[in-house]
């Protein structure tokens, strides 16, 4: 799969770095290698993806699965032991990295999933900016 970095993902990465939530080291050693698994021919057949603590479908406010929406998860990240999440849209064999965030509460998670729904709709309409690819 192609792994594409959207403007939303860049913004969220800048913010996480600015708030000292994600160090360069954490990014290089933990986050990036995991995200790069999506570049495999059949990434979802990799054993990591069958672990719900690592990967799972995005769900909406009513706990229904959001079509084409997924979450990659890291637990106890950094010295603050943050719950880091990366919202991803998988559309036409491309993984669009949409936003990284800290899951501080269920409410925060719901907000981010609502935003992911908007991202997915925009991507399907061709309304998005790319800032790079992995």
């Amino acid at each position, binding site marked *: 799969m192609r792994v594409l*970095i959207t*403007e939303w993902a*860049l*913004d*969220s*990465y*800048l*913010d996480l*770095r*600015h708030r000292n939530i994600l160090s*360069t080291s954490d990014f290089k050693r933990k986050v990036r290698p995991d995200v790069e698994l999506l570049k495999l021919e059949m990434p979802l057949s990799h054993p990591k993806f069958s672990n719900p603590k690592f990967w799972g479908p995005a769900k*909406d*406010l009513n706990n229904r699965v959001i079509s084409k929406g997924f979450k990659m998860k890291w637990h106890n990240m950094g010295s603050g032991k943050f719950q880091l999440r990366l919202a991803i849209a998988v559309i036409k064999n491309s993984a669009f990295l949409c936003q990284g965030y800290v899951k501080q509460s269920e*409410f*925060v998670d*719901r*907000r981010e*999933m*609502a*935003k*992911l*729904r*908007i*991202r*997915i*709709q925009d991507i399907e309409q061709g*309304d998005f*900016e*790319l*800032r*790079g690819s992995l």
Partner: protein
Amino acid sequence: MKNSKKKAKELVRIFEIAVAMRAARLSPEFVVKSVRLALDYDGARELMLLWAQAPSAQDCEDVEADLQDEIDAHHSRSNLQRGKRKVVRFDDVELIAKDIEGFKRHLRRIVDQQGGISALAHKTGIPQPSLSRFFNSVSVPRRVTLYKIARALGLRDDEIITNWVA
């Protein structure tokens, strides 16, 4: 039939929330734009529902800031104000963040000289939480937001555009 009834109920709920937003003194411009966005995007509708369900004042403000971000983002696109975006190299990200931080710090000084964030919120119609988020983050500033701020502060557009404007 069932679907259209459900849809109608959802729409009525959005308008009820819009009324509640006005009662909470959010600007008419913000409320109208939020409703318009909610009519087009299921995710925006969810954000409005979340505003109504927010467990704390801070959560409420965070949703207001989310909605304003989406309003600005979609306004930029609909007005074809997108410029050609540079592909960003990973090694440049730290420099970009410093650049944006410095720019926003400079802008914040001007804002503080002219009555602060609450005065700016009043002049621009942008909710205060959204402006606080703008100044406290290093996310790439949106052109539409910068133009509103420029007009409110009496700055020329060219005084406010940075290298990394979206």
